């Protein structure tokens, strides 16, 4: 087996992983807002009642 590798500083990879991290935060916040906005409407559409039907 190859020897263990110590991670070295690589700006391009940091940018790549940082982009994925940023996307995750944006999606968490964005979908959270979307859920509050269209959630009740979707519930009425699918169930025929509001979210309190749970």
């Amino acid at each position: 087996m190859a020897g263990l590798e110590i991670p070295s500083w690589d700006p391009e990879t940091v940018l790549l992983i940082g982009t994925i991290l940023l996307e995750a935060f944006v999606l968490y916040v964005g979908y959270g807002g979307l859920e509050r906005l269209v959630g009740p409407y979707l519930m009425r559409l699918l169930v025929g009642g509001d979210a309190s039907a749970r």
Partner: protein
Amino acid sequence: MLGNFLGGLGIFETSPEMLALFVGFGLVVGVLFGFFGMGGSFLVTPALLMLDYPASVAVGSGMAFVFGTAVIATLKHHDLGQVDYKLGVIMITGTTIGIEAGRASVYYLESMGLAGGVISVAYVVLLGGVGAMVTRDALKGDDDGGVDHEAADKDLDEYEIPDVAKKIQRTVRIPPMVTLRGDVTVSVWVITAVAFSTGVLSGFLGVGGGFIRMPAMIYAIGVPVPVAVGTDLFEIVFSGGLGSYLYGQDGGVSLGIVAPLLFGSALGARVGSAATAIVDSDEIKVYFGGMLLVGALAVGIGEVGSYIGSSTLELLGLVLTIGAAVVVAFAVLYTTISSLRVTRQQQTSAAD
């Protein structure tokens, strides 16, 4: 500027059809992950392997996807107070070394031209084994095959420590000892051993390792189920981030794969999590076990197709993998909407 940046990260290398496929597959994986608390991520790497991506790209991008998903899920579990940061930090050390060992073995096998085959075989064994276990437990009515949704409402000190965990806590008393959430006292070495072995699997297969680590934390360390889930996700943020970084340095992470998968899975995970408050997972756990078994069969068929040069068999393997996940995700959605409608009708009748 932005175009050059995204182009450099590989986002434009993916065709619109593939982007749509990845968003859709991410949505399905997200629903499964949000509902069962595990099991979505390890469908991604075999699917990428069957789409003819090199093993290092399939594993590296699979791991980067797991990293992004774990960030989103950890934010939610942190709000619920279900993350033991002390346990998480200890586990990160063992997992980090384990991941690097697993990752190094992928490159070693790749240099010998064996990586794709060995990883596929490991998936068949793992998916088949976990699938058989979950199906058996679901048929028996046990609750070991994922998150116990009813248990989420219990206090942490109400959880009973499994007998095997009690035995390990009594037998392995090598200092230093630590006390964790749920009043569990255990040797640091037990935690490190669990972390290392699951880290090797993570690095080798490009998975978060949650479907092995979560039961290991419950049965070997003895922490309550919600703490195991929350801490596992916290740990995956670091292990997945480091694994992605190491694969990314060698060109193993494609943003053209990870970004659309994450875009779909973040939405799917919200839907799946919301469904847990409505549907009892025991109702459809048997489908989940079946999906893992079909996944194992599909990877096997795809690998045989690749070995004998049959593109039909390779396509069949891919269709089976994605098809099984889609069927179970739709079963979750269908059961949720049906349950909501029944509840609504009952409330209307009661009001009348």
